[in-house]
């Protein structure tokens, strides 16, 4: 019964892995993998001396870090706020509203942001109507792009990421709050001393797991906006590999960049899990020694 799934993974998961040997070839579409000439590490030498590659590397790190710093606290704040709402109906209404954008496609999210923040968008026409002469176009500005990317991800994923914090909040024992309140702790002290420490394990876990995907960050999101913002701000490692490999037909070079990304990502993800285990948490997989 497992056969159909196994065959699909074999054909579309493992065959491409074998195909990665083309990173060590000068791949030609007509010669194929079997007859293309071997070039050793030439593609990688070219890659690591390519300023475009290092530029994409820097962009990836900047976009990823800004996004992480800005978006990480928001689901936590949302969860704490929602947890404090007494009306159950209002709470579930807000929860379904903030979770909804998670189910929109990236193309949809970018389009919505264009319509709201772009030229002749909602904000633009509002500002013009209120006497601002030339409001800035926020969606094509390379300097602001990192904040736009963070904003799109916050809008799309905050509600979804909130759910896991809500569950963690429900697991904090009410007797802790009760005892603290009896001892005279106000809500600010209770949040600081009980709620946030209670959420800390899940925060640490999510942060570490997030770091594992740093280098492959944002493929679709950047690809969609590459034309509007330009490669100076929006070219990341994944789009670099795609642009070189598929768009320009430089298959071996793109595959070399892809192989570099694949290997570094595995190392990152496995070390992230190791760190999670060292901190006493379950990572993506469970620590067998516990």
């Amino acid at each position, binding site marked *: 019964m497992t056969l159909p799934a196994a065959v699909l993974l074999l054909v579309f998961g493992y065959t491409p892995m074998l195909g990665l040997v083309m990173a060590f070839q000068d791949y030609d579409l007509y010669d194929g993998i079997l007859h293309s000439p071997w070039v050793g590490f030439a593609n990688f030498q070219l890659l690591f001396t390519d300023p475009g590659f290092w530029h994409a590397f820097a962009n990836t790190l900047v976009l990823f870090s800004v996004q992480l710093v800005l978006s990480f606290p928001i689901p936590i704040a949302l969860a704490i706020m929602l947890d404090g709402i007494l009306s159950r109906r209002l709470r579930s209404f807000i929860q379904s509203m903030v979770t909804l954008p998670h189910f929109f496609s990236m193309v949809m999210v970018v389009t919505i942001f264009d319509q709201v923040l772009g030229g002749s968008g909602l904000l633009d026409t509002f500002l013009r109507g209120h006497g601002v002469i030339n409001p800035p176009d926020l969606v094509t500005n390379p300097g602001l792009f990192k904040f736009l990317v963070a904003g799109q991800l916050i*809008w799309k994923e905050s509600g979804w990421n909130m759910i896991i914090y809500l569950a963690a909040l429900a697991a904090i024992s009410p007797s802790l709050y009760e005892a603290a309140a009896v001892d005279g702790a106000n809500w600010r002290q209770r949040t600081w001393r009980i709620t946030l420490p209670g959420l800390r394990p899940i925060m640490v876990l999510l942060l570490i797991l997030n770091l594992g995907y740093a280098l492959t960050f944002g493929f679709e999101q950047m690809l969609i906006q590459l034309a509007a913002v330009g490669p100076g701000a929006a070219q990341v490692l994944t789009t670099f590999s795609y642009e070189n490999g598929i768009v320009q037909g430089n298959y071996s070079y793109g595959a070399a960049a892809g192989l570099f990304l694949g290997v570094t990502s*595995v190392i990152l993800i496995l070390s992230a899990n190791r760190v999670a285990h060292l901190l006493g948490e379950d990572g993506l997989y469970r620590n067998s020694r516990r």
Partner: protein
Amino acid sequence: MATTAPRQATARPRHTRRNPRRPVWQERPAPATQSAKGAAIVAILLIIALPLYSIVLTSFSDQASVNIAGGLVVWPHGLTLSAYRLIAEGGVVGRALVISVLLTAVGTAFSVTVTILASYGLSRAGSFGHKTILWFMMITMFFSGGIIPLFLVVSGLGGFDQYWALILPGAVSVFNIIVMRAFFMNIASDMIESALIDGASDWKILWRIVLPTSRAVTAVIALFYGVTYWNSWFNILLFMPADSVKWPLQMVLYTYVTQGNPMPGSGSSTIGGFVGNQQIAPLSLQMAVVTLTVVPVLIVYPFVQKHFTKGVLLGAIKG
């Protein structure tokens, strides 16, 4: 004076009446805190709802309202169905909508079937090499060949510009198999064993015992697959040529709205189109495409929403 009297009347019970849901130890928040929280909630809801409202409203607005608004319409003026009538007359958007619906339906059915079969096979402790096969599958979660070899494999199999290229390469999510397998393993094994003794085949056990007890998890997984198929965009870019008549909706959205290219069959983008002799604002037509892309998600959403927490947590805890 008339206004102060009722204010006093509501002010007095403030200290005596309390919300029965509020825990006894919790003090009533200060009015400033409470109004700040209220304002935050309203702001959050507006940030999500206002763009969607405005987009849907614009798709139903006539040329004059779009001209008055100078862009997206916020206050309704003249409403019209002409953008949708133009789409219903055929052309690129209507065709893409049909393709997307069929693709999502077929793809989801296929993915759910394959996932159920694999999860059941891997959940039976004695089945052939189940540990090895599970490892073999999980490796693909951590490492993949990347886009370029996948593109060459699929085109090598003749998948370029074929619908199966949009379904098969991503049909199996190992993550979903792990979630579902974990669920199947929790089903009381004595029930399955007694059925085995009674001579029931694996197919019968799956159909009669396992599936009826796992409707919720199946619904969540079907939703995840369905949303993935409906929303996928990059694989269309990768496996379908430019201007293909086989484009699903997301690509039409990307090309004619996100990129703003002129839409064929509706005049040029800057002119809009005509239904009868009524002119359609190009922006309305574009927003109609956005609306059509988002509406199916909105329709399915309430039905499966109650299972989310379960789905997210299942993945988080048992993955």
